[in-house]
């Protein structure tokens, strides 16, 4: 114990003399842990919210009965089926806007008494005594505790809605899904202004049998499946976030690795003395591990706290993206369990030990006398570089294999991970080879020194440069993907949203009334009715849309792929369909293939005549001729109208529609608002990605700064003789800056093709596997120039302090270097 104590004490004394190194190690651990745990916190929070949403009415497996045309059901369906012995329970769902907070919330109305026996309501038994207050006047509104806090409301409050209705007293519940108000069904009908209507009926999944007429024609069964689960739909989104978090973690660990390696190298004489004093390798390693673990714990605590703060800052954007893209509600406030805190600390500890393993191994393997020999460490480093080259080669082979045979999201991530690993590990070798190639006889002495010294700096700089390479490539890759997506998406949106106004009637009767009223309005040029039906193929949820033949679609609807001739003629001739890219990929079908659609009249076989893009839609989408759809679903009412009209008259028409048909803003959307909303969702979706990318670049900048700062002291040894031979300090400073810039530029030269390759992986592999759509690979030179400028600026900032120190170094400092033993 005494041996360990004194060994540890002597090792720790190093940090007192080298506070910058301590800072760099701490920073690496801190940033690596912060970025990864931040992402894990976001994902954890979202998953917890999904779990609560899917368990809102839980306890037993359930099935659902809903209208085949997606419209609300009359309340009579519930009472009739109940009388006939069907154990159904009604649910009404819609949205309301809180007047003061101007916040839209989902409302779910239930009838607890008729819920299947054994059901749980927000984690509580459906027959709990608490429910008496829920169903008896003045009733209760159950709401998630964090939503309550987020809205700055309290238990017992009765906020007003935008439609003038008042909510029953609020009651916070821990297990409630965020962003949802749970009320008695009678209350929901009043709040949503949908008297005697319900959205669907739920019943135990174990119930079998055929529904009695006419319900067998009007209702469709839907067994609860994982396909529609928000957790399943958003899986790819969270996987992408995790990948970015892991990248940032890796970049942070590069700093830790560099700092630990340098600290050990600087402590060579100390290690020799300690070993020579009779401390065994085992004790020395144990002391080093204890020291590293303590540092990891300190950095980990700071990282976990920062990760929490980071996640809190990013959560509103992430929650908005998930709501906009997938309709998944995520609590806007973080509530993390002690397991998350402990797990994150363990992550930091494991990361530090992984990053330090190589240095510890090297320290354990070097012979006692070689510990103090500078050359021994350099030889060890060269050998390590050699091995690194082999690992890079193997990683490149793995990447090639994944690209060749892979056909899943996991193989896509293996491809990207191996590609990044191969490039990062291969970088020092590539740089060294390149520098050797450009160093040729005949160069001026300073140029020769400049290049040769650059090579000599590589061991100390390689990890920082590897981190920079990863950060730059990730920025180029994600930037190209985002910018390419932005352009494709905007163009697509302009084409797809060609009508000036979109109307969703509340009831079939209203649909008929609108069809008669709309064409008589002077501003309206054409009214395009659309039919919609929610269904499933091979367990994949999709929307089947029927449209009338019109030039608007023929001219504007963007197609990615189509059969020869005019696909629109084929579609409107009947027996054909067009489908979204992601659905085509999921079903593995192409042009000319036949798809079987389940209908009330049996199976309908339709031929694929075109495939179109449907960005941002996690569900499948199929386009058919409206006449075909009416043939198979005769009772299907019009679900929406696309109105072509004078754009300047949209506001007036909307106002008249609101007044005459009581349509709220969810059922009446103009083109401009829809585009604005879609663009907002898009921007918010990528805001977390952009933030994480920027942070990764900052981390790489810090890695570079730390490497330069650590090197600056030993650099004096190389620079002092030059100064003595008549090279001015200004020249030395410029040469030094030039060397750092050269290394950065060469790294950038490698980062650009790697980034473009990464962009290709994202648009052609990851996006396809994760979301089902493929984007064209686009490279934006202006973005590359901006990033190059940013990288050089970061390099300049990172080298500013070490250069300033050199500039300020007094002759006496340089003279001391000339005289000291090095």
């Amino acid at each position: 114990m005494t041996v360990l104590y004194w060994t540890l004490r002597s090792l720790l004394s190093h940090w007192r003399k080298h506070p910058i190194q301590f800072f760099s190690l701490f920073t690496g651990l801190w940033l690596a842990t912060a970025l990864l745990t931040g992402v894990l916190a976001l994902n954890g929070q979202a998953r917890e919210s999904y779990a609560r949403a899917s368990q809102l009415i839980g306890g037993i497996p359930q099935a659902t009965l809903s209208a085949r045309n997606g419209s609300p059901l009359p309340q009579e369906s519930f009472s009739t089926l109940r009388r006939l012995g069907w154990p159904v329970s009604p649910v009404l769902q819609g949205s309301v806007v809180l007047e003061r907070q101007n916040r839209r919330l989902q409302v779910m109305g239930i009838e607890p008494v008729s819920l299947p026996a054994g059901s749980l309501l927000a984690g509580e038994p459906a027959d709990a005594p608490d429910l008496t207050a829920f169903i008896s006047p003045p009733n209760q509104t159950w709401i998630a505790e964090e939503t309550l806090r987020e809205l700055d409301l309290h238990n017992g409050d009765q906020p007003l809605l935008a439609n003038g209705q008042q909510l029953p007293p609020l009651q916070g519940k821990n297990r409630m899904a965020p962003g949802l108000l749970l009320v008695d069904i009678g209350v929901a009908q009043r709040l949503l202004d949908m008297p005697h209507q319900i959205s669907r009926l739920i019943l135990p999944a174990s119930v079998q049998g055929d529904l009695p007429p006419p319900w067998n024609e009007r209702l469709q069964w839907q067994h609860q499946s994982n396909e529609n689960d928000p957790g399943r739909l958003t899986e790819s989104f969270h996987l992408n976030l995790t990948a970015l978090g892991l990248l940032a973690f890796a970049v942070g660990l590069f700093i830790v690795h560099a700092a630990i390696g340098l600290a050990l190298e600087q402590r060579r004489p100390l290690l020799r003395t300690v070993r020579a004093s009779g401390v065994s390798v085992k004790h020395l390693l144990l002391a080093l591990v204890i020291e590293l673990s303590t540092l990891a714990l300190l950095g980990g605590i700071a990282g976990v706290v920062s990760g929490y703060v980071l996640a809190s800052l990013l959560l509103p954007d992430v929650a908005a993206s998930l709501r906009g893209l997938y309709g998944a509600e995520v609590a806007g406030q973080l509530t993390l369990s002690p397991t998350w805190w402990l797990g994150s600390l363990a992550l930091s500890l494991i990361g530090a030990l992984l990053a330090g393993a190589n240095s510890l191994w090297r320290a354990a393997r070097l012979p006692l006398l070689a510990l103090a020999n500078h050359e021994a460490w350099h030889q060890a480093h060269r050998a390590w570089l050699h091995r690194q080259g082999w690992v890079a080669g193997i990683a490149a082979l793995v990447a090639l294999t994944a690209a060749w045979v892979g056909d899943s999201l996991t193989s896509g991530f293996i491809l990207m991970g191996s590609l990044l690993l191969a490039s990062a590990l291969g970088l020092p070798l590539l740089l060294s080879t390149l520098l050797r190639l450009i160093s040729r006889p005949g160069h001026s002495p300073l140029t020769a020194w400049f290049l040769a010294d650059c090579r000599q700096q590589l061991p100390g700089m390689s990890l920082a440069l590897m981190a920079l390479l990863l950060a730059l490539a990730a920025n180029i890759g994600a930037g190209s993907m985002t910018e390419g997506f932005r352009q494709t998406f905007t163009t697509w949106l302009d084409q797809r949203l060609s009508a000036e106004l979109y109307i969703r009637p509340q009831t079939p009767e209203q649909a008929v009334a609108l069809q008669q009223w709309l064409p008589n309005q002077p501003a309206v040029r054409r009214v395009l009715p659309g039919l919609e039906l929610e269904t499933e193929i091979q367990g994949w949820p999709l929307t089947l849309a029927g449209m009338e033949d019109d030039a608007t679609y023929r001219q504007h609807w963007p197609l990615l792929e189509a059969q020869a001739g005019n696909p629109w003629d084929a579609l409107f001739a009947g027996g054909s369909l067009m489908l979204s890219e992601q659905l085509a990929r999921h079903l593995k079908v192409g042009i000319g293939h036949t798809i079987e659609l389940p209908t009330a009249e049996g199976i309908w076989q339709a031929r694929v005549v075109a495939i179109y893009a449907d960005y941002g839609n996690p569900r499948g989408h199929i386009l058919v001729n409206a006449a075909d759809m009416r043939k198979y679903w005769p009772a299907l009412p019009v679900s929406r109208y696309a109105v072509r009209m004078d754009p300047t008259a949209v506001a007036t028409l909307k106002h008249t529609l609101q007044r005459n048909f009581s349509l709220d803003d969810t059922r009446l959307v103009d083109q401009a608002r829809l585009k604005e909303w879609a663009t907002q969702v898009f921007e918010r979706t990528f805001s977390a990605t952009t933030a994480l990318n920027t942070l990764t670049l900052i981390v790489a900048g810090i890695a570079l700064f730390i490497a330069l700062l650590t090197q600056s002291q030993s650099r004096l040894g190389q620079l002092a003789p030059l100064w003595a031979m008549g090279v001015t300090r200004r020249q030395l400073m410029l040469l030094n800056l030039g060397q750092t810039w050269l290394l950065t530029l060469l790294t950038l030269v490698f980062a650009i093709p790697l980034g473009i390759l990464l962009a290709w992986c994202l648009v052609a592999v990851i996006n396809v596997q994760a979301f089902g759509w493929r984007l064209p690979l686009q490279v934006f030179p202006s973005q590359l120039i901006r990033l190059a400028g940013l990288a050089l600026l970061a390099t300049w900032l990172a080298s500013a302090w070490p250069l300033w120190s050199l500039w300020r170094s007094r002759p006496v400092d340089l003279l001391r270097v000339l005289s000291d033993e090095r």
Partner: protein
Amino acid sequence: MLQVTDLHKHYPTPQGPLPVLRGIDLYLERGGSLALMGESGSGKSTLLHLIAGLDTPDRGHINIAGKALHTMSERQLADWRRCEIGLIFQQFNLIGSLTVADNLAFQARLAGRYDPVWQQQLAEQLGLGELLQRYPEQLSGGQQQRVALGRALASKPALVLADEPTGNLDETTSGQVLNLLLKLVSRSGCTLLMVTHSPHVAAQLQQRVVLKAGRIDPVSVVSEP
């Protein structure tokens, strides 16, 4: 050639200024050689650094070949050092990233005085012919110091300043290096000022002075024709 007049230098310390040189007067003719001796801390290296223009005196003047160092800017001093001074250090201070050949030619190329014939002669006489493509870390101490000698003399400087050039070498190697230095200095017609602890080494130079507490010990001054 070299005239030092009333040279003073002190270093700031936490305990106050520490005087290192307290009025040095020195004269050395062109082509002459002088051994500067004294105990550790007597100011020998400081005086050498001041003469090399690596540091500036607090008071006094240094004139070399008619040029007054105190009137020169840092840039002029650097230019002058590059062309006129050859420096040899106890620790060799070779450039680790360059080969022996590049190290030898480095200062001569910097000064624009690279002479391949002279370079080859130097390499041969220093016994470095076989080692030209090696790197400093692959050489012994004696070999490294021979490279340092070659580098200092390659530009044919007016003044060679050597700071204990044999201090890190064993007796045999030390003798070989010293002989080479004296031979090459004499052949190139340079002036030599050498700091040394060794009376044996000093005895081989034309003049010898001993520094004591920042002053030249008047008893120590020895000049031989």
